[in-house]
């Protein structure tokens, strides 16, 4: 056994390596990025296992499925909204008969530190009717990931690990154990289970449903679910899940007694343990990060006389992260107070583009090119350039999901807004912008797509874009964009006037045009120079 200091993300990555991982795939997304980053570094240093960035979460998931089909252990990691992109293979992978262990790690972002929403991935695990593990600390992140591969092979399902920002990006000592070797290639013995034609799929689905009691039985007995009844006190029971337990323990000393406590780290939630707890107490407080997942389940299975305190009752805020202070309040403890702030308003300091960022020069040119139009619309997407929504640029008007800028500009144009301009980064374009561009090509939509090509996935720390800039022009032309209306320009303030002119001309052109504004992110440039 060795002690290592690891981020929650890194503990997951190392747990997978030590479980005999053969290959891992991902698309970067905060707070999940450091999982694959760790594995990429690990592969460089040790030659294995394989770790690769992919075009998007769906392609990553599908590559992982191929590894599992071949009988070897595989992992795909993503942020919560990434699972929406991979939802198609995810939902279907629940009913193929998983061969080599397949672990899906999804990092949720309660509090929306770097995300568009707060969705709770435990619902996806429930939706797919599979098993889900939720670590509460770095050690559990390591242990549960190891265990998840075994479970996946034992139950022939993908196993989902749900972590949250606060665990993903927090460091602590982790005690690691011996690694097991990779498995040999062993093709799925029952390929029909992987052919989801309706006749097979019905059988597989039926089979998955039939195994639900097995999953539940496992979860009732799992050491990750832990019930402690206090025989002397019957007034309050507490249910924690994931890192909710940490905040509970933080306050426990001051409570003066130990309420009966059920911690849930494995799902399906252990119904019997829940029944035993609620049968013992008159009130239950549920502390879980994300949605009221367990709380809602509780409202379905216990007597209406039981008082349930949680997000739905207003005892815990329905949004944002849990904190020790929120949990304190929900336990009825007196609020703590720190030093009083002096009487002065502190301005906010939002994130912003780096000084010299190529996107800033593109925004300048775009604003000039749009001058004088009465109803222009500029849709945007997800990346550093989303910061163009804030002053001093205030240059874009939307940010919804990966690739949406292209589709939304098409819709806005169809609806009659002129001119319609869509902005998207190179990495996001390849992730989810190519397909809506095909729709625009097919219709020769009157819109201008500006691909802001900084040659990297900058916002998550500079992972390589899956195709180099030279290939993006070829791709765009290959989709059928008219060569006369496809331009590659340099995103630099020296060229602002020339760029404005090209943009203006294409914005005035009736029909589809694409402009690729290329200049490398100064951050990746800097780190290359240092290396």
């Amino acid at each position, binding site marked *: 056994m060795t002690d290592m200091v690891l981020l929650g993300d890194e503990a997951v990555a190392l747990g997978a390596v030590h479980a005999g991982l053969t290959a891992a795939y991902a698309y970067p997304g905060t707070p999940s990025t450091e999982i694959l980053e760790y594995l990429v570094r690990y592969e460089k240093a040790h030659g294995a296992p394989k770790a690769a960035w992919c075009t998007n979460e769906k392609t990553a998931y599908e590559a992982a499925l191929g590894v599992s089909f071949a009988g070897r252990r595989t992992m795909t990691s993503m942020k919560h909204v990434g699972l929406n992109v991979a939802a198609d293979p995810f939902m279907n992978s629940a009913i193929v008969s998983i061969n080599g262990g397949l672990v899906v790690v999804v990092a949720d972002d309660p509090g929306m530190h770097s995300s568009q929403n707060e969705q709770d991935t435990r619902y996806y695990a429930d939706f797919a009717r599979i098993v889900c593990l939720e670590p509460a600390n770095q050690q559990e992140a390591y242990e549960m990931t190891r265990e998840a591969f075994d479970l996946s092979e034992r139950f022939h399902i993908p196993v989902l690990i749900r972590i949250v920002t*606060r665990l993903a990006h*927090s460091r602590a000592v982790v005690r690691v154990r011996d690694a097991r070797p990779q498995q040999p290639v062993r093709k799925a013995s029952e390929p029909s289970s992987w052919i989801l034609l309706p006749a097979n799929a019905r059988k597989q689905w039926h089979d998955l449903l039939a195994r639900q009691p097995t999953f539940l039985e496992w979860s009732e007995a799992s050491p990750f679910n832990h019930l402690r009844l206090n025989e002397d006190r019957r007034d309050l029971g507490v249910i924690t899940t994931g890192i909710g337990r940490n905040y*509970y323990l933080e306050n426990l000393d001051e409570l003066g007694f130990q309420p009966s406590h059920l911690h849930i780290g494995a799902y399906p939630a252990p119904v019997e343990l829940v029944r035993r707890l609620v049968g013992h107490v008159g009130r239950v407080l549920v502390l879980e990060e994300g949605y009221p997942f367990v709380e809602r389940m509780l409202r379905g299975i216990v007597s209406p006389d039981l008082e349930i305190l949680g997000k739905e009752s207003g005892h815990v805020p329905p949004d944002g992260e849990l904190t020790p202070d929120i949990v304190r309040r929900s336990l009825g403890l007196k609020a703590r107070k720190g030093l009083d702030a002096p009487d002065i308003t502190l301005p906010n300091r939002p*994130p912003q*583009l780096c000084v010299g960022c190529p996107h800033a020069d593109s925004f300048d040119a775009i604003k000039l090119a749009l001058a004088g139009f009465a109803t222009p619309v500029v849709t945007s997407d997800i990346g550093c350039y989303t910061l163009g929504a804030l002053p001093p640029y205030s240059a874009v008007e939307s940010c919804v999901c990966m690739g949406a800028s292209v589709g939304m500009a098409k819709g806005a144009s169809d609806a009659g807004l002129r001119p319609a301009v869509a902005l998207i980064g190179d990495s996001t374009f390849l992730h989810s912008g190519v397909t809506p561009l095909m729709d625009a090509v097919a219709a020769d939509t009157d819109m201008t797509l500006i691909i802001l090509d900084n040659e990297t996935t900058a916002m998550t720390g500079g992972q390589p874009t899956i195709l180099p800039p030279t290939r993006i022009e070829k791709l765009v032309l290959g989709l059928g964009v008219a060569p006369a209306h496809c331009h590659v320009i340099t995103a630099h303030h020296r060229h602002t006037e020339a760029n404005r002119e090209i943009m203006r001309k294409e914005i005035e052109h009736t029909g589809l045009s694409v402009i690729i504004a290329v200049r490398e992110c100064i951050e990746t440039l800097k780190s290359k120079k240092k290396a």
Partner: protein
Amino acid sequence: MKYDIILAGVGGQGVLSVSAIIASSAMKEGLFVKQSEVHGMSQRGGAVLANLRLADAPIASDLIPLGSASMILSMEPLESLRYLKYLSTDGAVITSTNPMVNIPDYPDLEELLGHIRALPHARLVDGEKLARAAGSARATNMVMVGAASHHLPVKVETLEHYIQTVFAAKGEKIVETNLEAFRSGREAAA
């Protein structure tokens, strides 16, 4: 023993290196450590907050509760005031006086410094000047580790050891600059 530290600054000021050095030193001395940090978009030139918790018993929460931090260690003045509600009433505020002005409404500097001086246990250090004297303005964050070192529950030698380790890959000269920055920060706050 329990020592909670709020580390504050702006993305790019090296808050995470500060956190890493203190955390590694504490661990070396047998303390339990939890360190929660900021990644991704929120780091890009925005306000950065790291929670660092040291204790001689296992630590449950990654986040520091209100009113319980023993120290706020800030790379610049405005950010040192943002998290006061986390500081215990007898906690220390240690900050560099050099403002990071990347917003249009940055408050008047003298007024800000006045507010900080009025706090019960404040220490202001001209981090940039000392770092320059040591060889590089980029070492301001190590000046601040030095300034904080009087209060931290870890030995000076251990901190110096980890400064060496963290910068070793960048060459002897960078190591020396950062050690010098650390020492001058320590002296300035003595």
